[in-house]
């Protein structure tokens, strides 16, 4: 087996435990996006155009709430800013690659592809065919996400509207946010954002969402700095 292929398979293998967790998530996304009012095609294509789980869930919710396009785009940007950290952290291992490889691997750079790859790179150091590992992890996740979205859309179409499935979106967000509320600044960030969102609810263009997010981020950062 060639060195490149061996690295690719290693990447896929490292991704498998994550794929098991991501699959139901993709299905939930597909079903909920449909329920939030996206067409089958839009729900499916978002999984390859945006290809970022939490941003996709949030977009579905905001479309459901008739949020203006610019506010949705701003929110996607804020939510996905963390990818710059992954980009910075992987950059030294990818610096000698061609532009085409950098573009491909950047497109595939999600939370779930980043996590096993950086662990692997930090352990193994710089080697010639290392980018194939990231390709294996990233591509298997991408494939898994497309298929699980499609199954979710298929199943979601069968769920009657009277089931209030739109409520599953905020429930998904509760499941994402509650486990990270461990330290004081995190709790303060969440509470201040929630409180601001209520106070600023009637701002035009749903700008209250952006304002609330910024207040929460600022409160958390300032409180952490004071410790």
């Amino acid at each position, binding site marked *: 087996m060639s060195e490149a292929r061996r690295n690719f398979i290693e990447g896929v293998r490292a991704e498998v435990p994550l794929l098991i967790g991501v699959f139901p998530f993709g299905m939930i996304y597909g079903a909920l996006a449909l329920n939030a009012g996206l067409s089958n095609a839009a729900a499916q294509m978002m999984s390859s155009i945006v290809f970022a789980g939490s941003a996709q869930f949030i977009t579905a919710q905001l*479309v459901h709430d008739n949020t203006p396009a610019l506010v949705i785009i701003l929110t996607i940007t804020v939510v996905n800013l963390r990818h710059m950290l992954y980009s910075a952290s992987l*950059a030294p291992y990818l610096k000698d690659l061609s532009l085409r490889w950098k573009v491909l691997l*950047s497109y595939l750079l999600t939370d779930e592809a980043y996590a096993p790859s950086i662990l692997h790179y930090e352990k193994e150091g710089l080697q010639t065919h290392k980018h194939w590992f990231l390709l294996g992890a990233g591509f298997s996740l991408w494939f898994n996400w497309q298929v699980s979205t499609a199954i979710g859309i298929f199943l979601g179409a069968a769920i009657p509207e009277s089931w209030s499935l739109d*409520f599953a979106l905020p429930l998904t967000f509760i*499941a994402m*946010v509650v486990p990270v509320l461990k330290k004081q600044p995190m709790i303060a960030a969440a509470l201040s954002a929630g409180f601001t969102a209520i106070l600023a609810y009637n701002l035009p263009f749903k700008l209250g969402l952006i304002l609330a997010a910024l207040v*929460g981020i600022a409160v958390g*950062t300032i409180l952490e700095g004071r410790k």
Partner: protein
Amino acid sequence: MNIWLVMIIGGLITFGMRFSLIYLFGRLEIPETMRKALHYVPPAVLSAIIIPELLIRDGVLDVSLGNTRLLAGIVAIITAWFSRSTLLTILVGMAALFVLQWLG
């Protein structure tokens, strides 16, 4: 609102951020404050969505026992706190909403 335009621009921005420092390696560093601030993005954005979703019904603040989504949301928050499971939180929260709507 055009969902396709939102997806394409949102996708391009997301790609741009993923590509940014891989492309600019050595020429740009992420400031420490921004690194810190990024930790607070998920709880801030998600809470800014969740709280109005639970507390505001039809455009008005509704903190009463008649607000079934608020009660079901509290059940879900408790479930998430103890189980740390996404699937269980969704299932219990939806079940709570069904029961409360049925009772109401």
